[in-house]
């Protein structure tokens, strides 16, 4: 997903192979930008990044909270979703065993400090099971201008090309 997958013909592919790494505006470029942005955040090593892709956390040195953005109840607010309040036991388990630090027994109950949302549509050719759509609707995350976004979601990065959006999550004072 991060390398540019376009195929531009055999001759072009061969010349690309021997050209210097001069990335144009590709997904890998955006990936590097997001990682650099995260690295600059203070206390990133103790922060949780919620995403589908662990690569952001690995390269930025943060902790990781896995989600496929298809969990929770349809009535969940965004804050309820990221706090994993109404996730099924199985969705929580899958999130915990893929997060870092690992949390098989659900002891840590982390809340993310950053959310990286990239709404990748299901691929019809994938053999992976496609969950039914009765989960929380978080598609609003792709629209950072939407007024319905909670006030504690601060936008840090948005790509017009790949629709990846990065939010910093501010703690809500009780």
């Amino acid at each position, binding site marked *: 997903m991060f390398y540019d997958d376009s195929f531009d013909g055999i001759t072009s592919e061969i010349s690309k192979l021997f050209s210097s790494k001069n990335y144009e505006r590709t997904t890998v470029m955006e990936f590097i930008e997001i990682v650099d942005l995260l690295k600059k955040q203070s206390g990133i090593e103790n922060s949780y990044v919620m995403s589908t892709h662990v690569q952001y956390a690995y390269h930025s040195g943060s902790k990781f909270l896995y989600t496929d953005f298809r969990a929770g109840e349809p009535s969940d607010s965004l804050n309820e979703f990221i706090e994993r309040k109404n996730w099924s036991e199985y969705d929580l*388990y899958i999130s915990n065993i893929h997060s870092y630090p*690992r949390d098989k027994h659900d002891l840590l109950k982390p809340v993310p400090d950053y959310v990286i949302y990239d709404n990748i549509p299901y691929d019809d050719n994938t*053999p992976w099971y496609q969950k039914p759509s009765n989960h929380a609707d978080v598609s609003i995350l792709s629209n950072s201008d939407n007024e319905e976004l909670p006030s504690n979601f601060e936008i840090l990065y948005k790509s017009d090309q790949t629709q990846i959006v990065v939010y910093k999550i501010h703690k809500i004072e009780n």
Partner: protein
Amino acid sequence: MNDLKSSSKNNSRILNHFFQENKLPIIITAIFFFSMFYIAFVHHTIWIEQDGIYYYFNGNEFFDGNSHNIQIIGAPIGTPVIYAVLDNLFGMPFEAAKSLSLISGTVIVLISYFITKNIFGVKVAIITQIIVAVNPKLHLLSISALNELMSIALIISSFYFLTKNELRNSDFVLMGILLGLSFMLRYQAILLILGIVIFLLIRNRKIRYNALKSGILILVFFTTASPILVFNYMTYENPMENDTSFYLLALFQFQNPEWRESISEMREEGLISLILEDPYLFAQNYFYNLFSHNPSKLFNFGVLDNLSVFPPIPVLGFITVVLGFLYAIKISKDKTTWIAIAAFAITALLVFFIGDLHQHYFALVFIPLLILGIFSLKKIQKNFLPLFIVSIVLIFSLAIIPAYRSYHFLFLLIPFSILNSIFIYEVLPKFVYRLKNLEKVRN
């Protein structure tokens, strides 16, 4: 001192002899190594392989004393530990993981020559090695920081000993060690043990002798794999710790809400309990995997991600393998042909009346070929037989899960590449010769 000198002279003489004897396979291996090295270290510069990072993090958790919080999926703790150790030593986990893949890929290319040479001699061996060396999936894995190739390289290395003309006790010991090491990285190696034991028990009538060899193999295998078995038992109270339910839930084509709910609560249960939860649904998935999904990943019946020798061209790679197979079993017009035809007729009836052509189409060809193979066991070259049996065992056992990546079958690359080489070296020239003769007769 003199002894040391003469022994080092002896070693260099052996090495020189080895290089002189095997120039071409070494050159092919070197070309593979340097090409993959260039891609891996000049172009693939960012660790993007999710699974590789997943296992690396598991290794960190192991050394942080947090193993009880890991849920092992797909592979035991072997590779994660190696990744974490190499990270501690060199501080470059991505480069270390890629290097392991590159070395493993190179070993596979080199050893593929010697395996085939054991069976069919130098010429077929060279063709096989070239077919293996140009396989795109092997390229992909050789440049990737993934927990795949090391275990496959160990399995394929065991094929070298398995295909020797005379199997000595030392060969069984070495096979046991290689497969035991592979098991510590991926559990699949145990299926190879099953295949080899089946081969030993049916190869001739010396049951006691073969049982003894099986015993040696199994004993060495479990002794080598014991660190993982003991670790799993002490940490998870299960020597073969793995969340099998994860793959069933994530990958099974046919599911229903009740079954999903039950299976998601059966994480600690073994495969048998998972099967018994709904045997009919399991059978439906199993036969779909066996006769449709997995074969497509092997030969491209409409899936671009495949292991075929001609990956972009559907079916063609299957035809060459079948023709190579028919040559290897020395097919002739005798009663086995009629048995195969009968098997085809019965399979066709079963598929049309009980099964579903869309889901079970591969059975129409696979079952008759299998029957043909079984009835021709005596005609198959003695040291090719173990590869044939092991492949069949793998095809049947791996159908428990739909393979979501074709490289999960990569250890079958060796037997399939050998069959492709037989096609190129033996079948194709005869076919061309007959065509030319036909033309001459017409003219």
